[in-house]
């Protein structure tokens, strides 16, 4: 009998403890959570310290792990505070921290050598050389967006030893994640948050909770030479190629990451369950359910040719 193949870990989002529980029950190997004041994401997507402690305890009881999304870029005067937080959380058993700034990443690597570090999808890594850059910097893993092809991942894996996480279930927005400051160009304000660090509403990389007010999903008039030619949203789509999971696993992906710390707990469980089934089927050499994508509300139909310049 053939041995089961080595399979990627399944990393689920958890905006609250119930989501973490459902993710673990559904088969996630780890969850990633935000700590209030230090992460991007929606208003429902952050834990306070007590909730985080309970989540880590729960994970450890199940033999699973917790990652912390600390993917705001901390100001220089905030770095020491965040480092102290991370040191304490590492003592609680936090497995990894997700970071968005190369300088802070290196600092955490040097000062907290036992803590795994993931270069966030907001770092904008897209190619093999990016992966090697973060590998050199000391990151344990780097997140690639879900629209990279399996052959691209295979090419990265051939050259880089850093773990490759792919955010397979995500909203593919028009602007590359980590390279967008349309919201803050249009609406940007400092917001005091009591004893929390000051955040900049509108800045996705520095604003924290709820900063991106999704202007790309509001209707815009497209004017050509001053005349309205169209009224439209920016292109975006939900991708979730469960039916093609095998190709990604064959390519050597280390972690399948699901986007959505603001998702309801039940939806997290359902999505994780679908990916768990697909991954287990792959491990045993079975073909994926071709209709699995429907369960995750996403599909990997080719992007409309009209959008892509590849091949032109």
């Amino acid at each position, binding site marked *: 009998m053939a041995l089961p193949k080595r399979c990627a870990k399944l990393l689920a989002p958890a905006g609250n403890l119930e989501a973490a529980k459902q993710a673990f029950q559904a088969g996630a190997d780890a969850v990633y959570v935000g700590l209030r004041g230090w992460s991007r994401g929606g208003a429902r997507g952050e834990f306070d310290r007590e909730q985080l402690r309970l989540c880590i305890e729960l994970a450890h009881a199940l033999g699973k792990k917790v990652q912390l999304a600390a993917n705001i*870029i*901390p*100001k*220089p005067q905030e770095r020491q505070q965040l480092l102290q937080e991370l040191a304490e959380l590492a003592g609680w058993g936090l497995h990894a921290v997700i970071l968005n*700034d*190369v*300088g*802070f990443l*290196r600092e955490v690597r040097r000062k907290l050598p036992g803590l795994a570090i993931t270069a966030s999808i907001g*770092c*904008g*890594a*897209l*190619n*093999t*050389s*990016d992966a*090697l*850059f973060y590998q*050199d*910097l000391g990151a344990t893993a780097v997140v690639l967006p879900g629209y990279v092809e399996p052959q*691209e991942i295979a*090419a*990265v894996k051939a050259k880089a030893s850093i773990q490759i996480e792919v955010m397979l279930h995500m909203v593919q927005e*028009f*602007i*590359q994640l980590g*390279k*967008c*400051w*349309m919201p*803050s*160009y*249009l609406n*940007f*304000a400092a917001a005091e948050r009591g004893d929390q660090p000051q955040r900049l509403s*509108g*800045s996705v*990389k*520095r604003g924290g909770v709820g900063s991106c007010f999704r*202007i790309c999903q*509001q*209707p*815009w*008039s*497209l*004017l*050509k*030479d*001053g005349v309205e030619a*169209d009224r439209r949203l920016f*292109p975006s789509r939900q991708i979730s190629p469960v039916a093609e999971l095998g190709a990604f696993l064959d390519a050597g992906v280390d972690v399948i990451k699901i986007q959505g710390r603001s998702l309801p707990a039940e939806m997290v469980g359902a999505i994780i369950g679908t990916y768990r089934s697909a991954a287990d089927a792959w491990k045993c050499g079975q073909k994926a359910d071709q209709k699995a994508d429907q369960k995750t509300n996403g599909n990997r139909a080719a*992007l*409309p040719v*009209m*959008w*892509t*310049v*590849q091949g*032109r």
Partner: protein
Amino acid sequence: MGPFELNTTISNLRNLRESDLSAYDAVYLGNIYCRIYEDNFLERLDDLEEGIALVKGQGLRAYVTSYAAPRNDVLPKVQKALETAAAAGADAVEVHNLGVLRMVHEQFPGMPAHIGGFANVYTDAGAEVLKEYGAVRFTPNYEISLDEVRAITSGVGMPAELVVHGKMPLGVSDYCFLLEYEKNWPEKCPTLCQKNLFLKQGDWAMRSVGKGVLSGKDVCMLEHLPALIAAGHNVFRIEAAYETPAYRLNIAQIYRAALEQAAAGGDGTVDESTWNTIREHTAVGLCNGFYFGRTGAEYVGKRMQSVVAC
């Protein structure tokens, strides 16, 4: 370098030949957004070699830029462009992608690297890492204020390149916003993105350049040049990759004169005819970007700015 450097970006040989560069000190060659931008220097390496020679032949510094969001299929071309830049004597390369920075550092160790705005330098710690990879100057992420820029330059000892005029980059995409209009418009790729295409919502406006989004308003720091000089800044960019040759020339002449005046201790006052010229080259209006910690589309200065219909 003199008391300051004024530079701009030019995407192809045609634009270079039709541009009067007499008011500039340096030019970045290439279009960072799209491989199929018309005759992009980064794809037409014979043109790139010729462009470098043309720029240097005029006594200017020639820099070669690179793609802001390259996937693996683009890296071989990036490699070739870097080789061409090195062989042709380019004075530096600009990198927006940290993987490309690593390529420059490993394979062209003597080549100075200018860090572009999409590389997301927000902090001194970030800049410090990139300095170790051969960066000799950086364009701060466009979102940070002058106070934050100063904290980086003073802490790291690396000069910042500041956009002082032109439409600020707001985002880069892997896909083109405009290709779906080819079937209904007379314009086709690769000239689509060179049209004046604006996205408007109420008072908000941005410019689409296909795979990139730019501010609708032009950043204008003309009133604030004395303060920038006094703060120790001396590298300034006119963002004009998608502008006309007249824009490229007229704006640069204004800024050159103003910078020389500021460097000599002037107070930054310019006459009304200068502002008229600025207005002629402004489709939507003026802003200061994020330099004063405000919303990017706001203008801070003595001159009140009204929005111009685009």
